[in-house]
């Protein structure tokens, strides 16, 4: 029989979840801030620079006032690592959901979660299948949150490409941004999932958004160059920076398949990790 987790541990998980949201919603990670600063230096158009200057001023203001960076505080996506000695059961999931409710009240977050057909708002950012929780084994108990706003999420795409079309992956990614234009609040970060299964590719694309954006492989840089050549620029006003980074994650797939997913992330590439001592 699996022992129930210690109530003190569950309370710590709730607090850690809330704290991770507080960090993610108010302060962007250093690598993302630096990428936006670098983009501002590299823009030559006055209008594009103005958009990035607004974004940088907004980041300072959010930190100074301890308020969310953007009024779309997203839906809760959570990545959990569990050490071998802590049993995983529903209590852990419920503790995380309670952390989301606390964060919604205390930070505060905009209640964004609705029933997909009724469109009724649950009022606390939890609901059927919400928060989304992905679990992996690890050495330590860590909670990583990725609040995902709708403007960028809505422009994401998936394709079941042919194995012979792997050279067309950069085209598919660039086409995703051509269709998106200024709508996903560029400069974006593009998470690209290649391989796995239909659902797996989309999960990989989202996980790619957790990776630091200050390093890229030559393949990622090649895709980034194709995207930035479009000249959509910050907020779609034209400019050199349409994307700050492209991050690719791969998984083995069927010999007859090539699933490719692009998860679009606005410039507010929010993520934060809090460890729970146990």
């Amino acid at each position: 029989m699996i022992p129930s987790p210690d109530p003190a541990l569950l309370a710590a998980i709730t607090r850690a979840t809330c704290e991770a949201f507080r960090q993610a919603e108010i302060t962007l990670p250093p690598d993302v801030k630096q990428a936006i600063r670098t983009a501002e230096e590299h823009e030559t158009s006055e209008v594009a620079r103005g958009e990035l200057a607004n974004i940088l001023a907004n980041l300072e203001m959010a930190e100074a006032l301890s308020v969310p960076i953007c009024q779309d505080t997203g839906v809760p996506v959570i990545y959990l690592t569990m050490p071998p000695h802590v049993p995983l059961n529903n209590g852990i999931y419920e503790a995380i959901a309670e952390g989301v409710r606390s964060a919604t009240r205390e930070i505060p977050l905009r209640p964004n979660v609705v029933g997909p057909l009724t469109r009724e708002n649950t009022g606390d950012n939890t609901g059927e299948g919400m928060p989304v929780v992905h679990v992996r084994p690890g050495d330590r108990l860590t909670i990583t949150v990725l609040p995902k706003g709708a403007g960028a999420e809505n422009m994401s795409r998936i394709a079941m490409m042919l194995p012979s079309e792997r050279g067309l992956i950069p085209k598919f990614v660039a086409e995703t941004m051509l269709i998106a234009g200024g709508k996903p609040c560029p400069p974006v970060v593009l998470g690209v999932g290649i391989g796995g299964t239909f659902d797996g590719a989309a999960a990989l694309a989202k996980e790619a958004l957790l990776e630091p954006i200050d390093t890229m492989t030559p393949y990622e840089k090649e895709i980034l160059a194709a995207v930035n050549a479009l000249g959509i620029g910050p907020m779609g006003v034209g400019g050199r920076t349409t994307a700050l980074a492209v991050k690719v994650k791969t998984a083995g797939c069927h010999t007859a398949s090539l699933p490719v997913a692009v998860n679009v992330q606005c410039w507010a590439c929010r993520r934060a990790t809090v460890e729970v001592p146990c």
Partner: protein
Amino acid sequence: MPPGNGGGAVLSIMDLCTPLSHEVLMLRAGDRVTLSGTVYTARDEAHLRMIEEGIPFDPHGAVIYHCGPVIQGQRVIAAGPTTSARMNSLSGFLIERGVRALVGKGGMSRQVADQLKGRGVYLAFTGGCAALAASRMTLKGVFFEDLGMAEAVWVIELDRLPLVVGIDAAGNDIFEGVHRNAQAEFRKRFSPKKETPA
């Protein structure tokens, strides 16, 4: 932070103040401006209500802000722009009644650009900049509060909000130009190599 810091080269900026008048006709797409004075927030539901019941404020020289803010008591907590394209088919009556500017993000349709000709402008505010926006806003009142926080018409006083002219009163549209160029670049880069005829 001192006002005006949000926009980089402050010197080139024209300061607009409501109610707006003929000065908006001189603006050109791509100009950077600041906006002070009263704006009225309106999203999808507020537009539908105004079409049905009439405009609850004086539309002459007024400014509409496409925004669903987070309001706490009498305080604006977060108030970045929402996607203006959702209001593409809902804005004509406002412009006809004398509204001089629509503020939002992402641009609007050719239909709206035509409706604005000789009358007013579309001003773009940087998406996601909710904290910056809120720091330059004072809440003055509300109409249609029954529509809920995001959809109600909030009356907000602005202090030099930094904006870009997205569509001018001559019909020039920076978003349209950028999209055309992006399409051309995409075709150039990714078109299949031309076959040499035998």
